[in-house]
């Protein structure tokens, strides 16, 4: 299978501080990949390079057979709007908008008419257990509800790739797991590839595959062989 999105030897420094040093990573279409690593390892920077938010100093980023790191800002902005979805640690909903308008936002921004955008947004409320929350504003939602609204917003435009940066970082563990369950199930349902950054193993375990970032370099963990040795002992 060819990769849908790929970083090839990506390096990026913030001033004198190198964040990425030749990181390479490849994600197939429909895959859910977790990027793990300690704080400061460069995992969020790698996500931002893949998503066209940051431009690497060197190396290449390819998406769907096209090199994207050398696109101009307008090109990258169009890509982020039309092909990518985003979920961040703190939902970052627009406080002036209702939950429904927040979900519809990516569609409105890409030119869908308001009525059509809201009609697309509405079914997400039932799907994510948010019935009756449509008219609430972000201040009237719990953390878990707000994050589910953010998830709906990230997926509503049926992006090819959903980028999630510590999507459960601000939630308690039970709520976080609900959000992960919903994220993975909804993304699979519509064939969206998910790349998520997390430092929590339990969140990463929802992914099909994991990559470790350490000192600015990425190591893709091979799919585990049917566990022998130590892992098998706790499993059996």
């Amino acid at each position, binding site marked *: 299978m060819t990769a849908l999105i790929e970083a090839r030897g990506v390096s990026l420094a913030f001033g004198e501080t190198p964040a990425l040093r030749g990181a390479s990573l490849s994600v197939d279409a429909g895959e859910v990949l977790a990027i793990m690593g300690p704080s400061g390892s460069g995992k969020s920077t790698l996500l931002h390079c893949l998503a066209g938010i940051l431009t690497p100093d060197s190396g290449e980023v390819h998406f769907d057979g096209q090199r994207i790191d050398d696109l101009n800002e307008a090109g990258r902005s169009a890509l982020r709007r039309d092909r990518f979805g985003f979920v961040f640690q703190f939902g970052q909903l627009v406080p002036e908008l209702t939950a429904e308008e927040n979900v519809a936002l990516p569609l409105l921004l890409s030119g869908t008419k308001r009525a059509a955008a809201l009609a697309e947004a509405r079914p997400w409320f039932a799907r994510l257990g948010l019935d009756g929350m449509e008219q609430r504003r972000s201040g009237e939602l719990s953390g878990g509800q707000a994050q589910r609204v953010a998830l709906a917003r990230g997926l509503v435009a049926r992006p090819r790739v959903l980028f999630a940066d510590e999507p459960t970082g601000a939630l308690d563990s039970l709520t976080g797991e609900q959000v992960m369950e919903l994220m993975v199930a909804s993304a699979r349902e519509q064939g969206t590839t998910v790349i998520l950054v997390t430092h929590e193993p*339990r969140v990463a375990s929802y992914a099909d595959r994991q990559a470790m970032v350490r000192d600015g370099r990425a190591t893709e963990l*091979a799919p585990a062989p049917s566990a022998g040795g130590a892992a098998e002992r*706790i499993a059996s």
Partner: protein
Amino acid sequence: MYVPPMSVPLTLLGLLEREPSHGYDLKRDYDAFFGRGKPLPYGQVYATLGRLARDGKVVAGEAEPGDGPERKRYVITEAGVTEFEHWLTEPITPEPNLQTVLFTKVVLALMLGRDAEIYLNTQRAAHLKRMRELNDLRRDGELVDALLADHGLFHLEADLRWIDLTTARLDALAEAVRS
């Protein structure tokens, strides 16, 4: 499927502490609550009850008429209750077995100049795969399954934290091991 360390004799004593029971009732309840897909063979049920009776922890009633292999009702004794309560209230020994194995492998790898990080990453992948299976069990299973899955998940998570920390310290560890 995740099965926690389980003591069959003490579990049967616990079930008998609830009410006097026939062997097949005990087997049925054991399988329902603790078997987790690994039913207790009848032979083991009766052998265990036999040993418990020999040690004065239970007494067997007279055989009752009826179909089936054995129809004796078992009753827990005072000695049985004491033993069961002691076991129930005693904290179980925390078992850092996995860490010991991991630790041994990491130290040996470093001593032999091999890449311990590759090994730790392989282990990490195996742990994450198992966690994913437990997530599925947690989602699709009943509450009892979910509780067991959680128990497994938290333990695996603790191991992963140790793996993370060890990975971060590999250079220093290598120096310590080789010096």
